[in-house]
């Protein structure tokens, strides 16, 4: 019978990750109360991603896992990045086309008869 050996994160590490998550929660609420303009969104998304990485790496044990699990856990995020990038490339460049000087060139001076 085969023994299954697993690397298990220690209790201290679990608590430390939890503390870091709560700290980041406090930081993100604080950051949202400071006016950073456009960077508010970047900060919120960045901190959320940091928290997510902590959860994935330590609570979900990817840090200790085989390369195959790294791939499987990363695949979803990579493919999501494809979806986001290409769709956003449409939305961010669409207005440039639609607001191109179509209307201006359409204004003709109609000669009086």
């Amino acid at each position, binding site marked *: 019978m085969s023994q299954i050996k697993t690397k298990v994160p220690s209790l201290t590490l679990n608590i430390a990750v939890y503390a870091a998550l709560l700290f980041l929660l406090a930081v993100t609420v604080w950051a949202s109360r400071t006016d950073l303009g456009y960077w508010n969104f970047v900060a919120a998304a960045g901190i959320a991603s940091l928290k997510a990485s902590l959860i994935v790496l330590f609570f979900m044990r990817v840090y200790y896992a085989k390369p195959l699990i790294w791939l499987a856990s990363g695949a979803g995020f990579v*493919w999501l990045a494809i979806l986001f990038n290409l769709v956003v490339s449409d939305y961010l460049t669409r207005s440039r086309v639609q607001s191109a000087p179509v209307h201006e060139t359409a204004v003709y001076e109609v000669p009086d008869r």
Partner: protein
Amino acid sequence: MFKPASQLVEVRADGAARVAHQFVDADQQHSAAELGMWLFLATEIMFFGAFFLAYLVYREWYPVAFAMGSRQMDVMLGTVNTGVLLTSSLTMALAVRASEMSQRRWMIGLLVATLLLGMVFLGIKGLEYYHKYAEHLVPFAGWTFAPAGEQRTGMMEFFNLYFLMTGLHALHMVAGLVMLALLVIVACRSPLRDSSSIVVHNVGLYWHFVDLVWVYLFPFFYLVSASGSVAM
């Protein structure tokens, strides 16, 4: 370099080894189950991802309305709820650890704690939904939607997505709670087997994933622009 502390634990393999007929040994079964769960989570990431994409698109279209919408949110309750969910993730992680170290009582206790925290989360979420309902901020067909004026359409889009995404998240929570309850019942009735830890581990993965979704939902809906100017 930072080296996270860890310890090597030998998962006990006494008790009846339950290896399904298609597998050669318990090791293969264990790896297959874990990989299968991660692939399932990949589909979940894509599923939620589509809604996050809709969120991004409409936030780009209606930046002011989204900021106004987020100011209707109860940041206090949201923060507390995030804390509750993060705590439940800790208890879940510790429950998985206990199952691997064959500490059955600890495992059951921690699973029950996770279950209770999950229910607290849903309770608070329900309270928030009720508040929104009372404030006429539920933009479904035919219901009066309170905010009027220029930003009405954008705010409706905000609340559509808010109810949709947090609702789907809550449904996933309910599924997770059912799985936890089943685990607790089975663990109370029978001793741990060597295949138990992978089941607990997989339920744990699912639970952490649900937590992960909320980690993004919270800032995206509650903290869009809690103060200051709207700049997008």
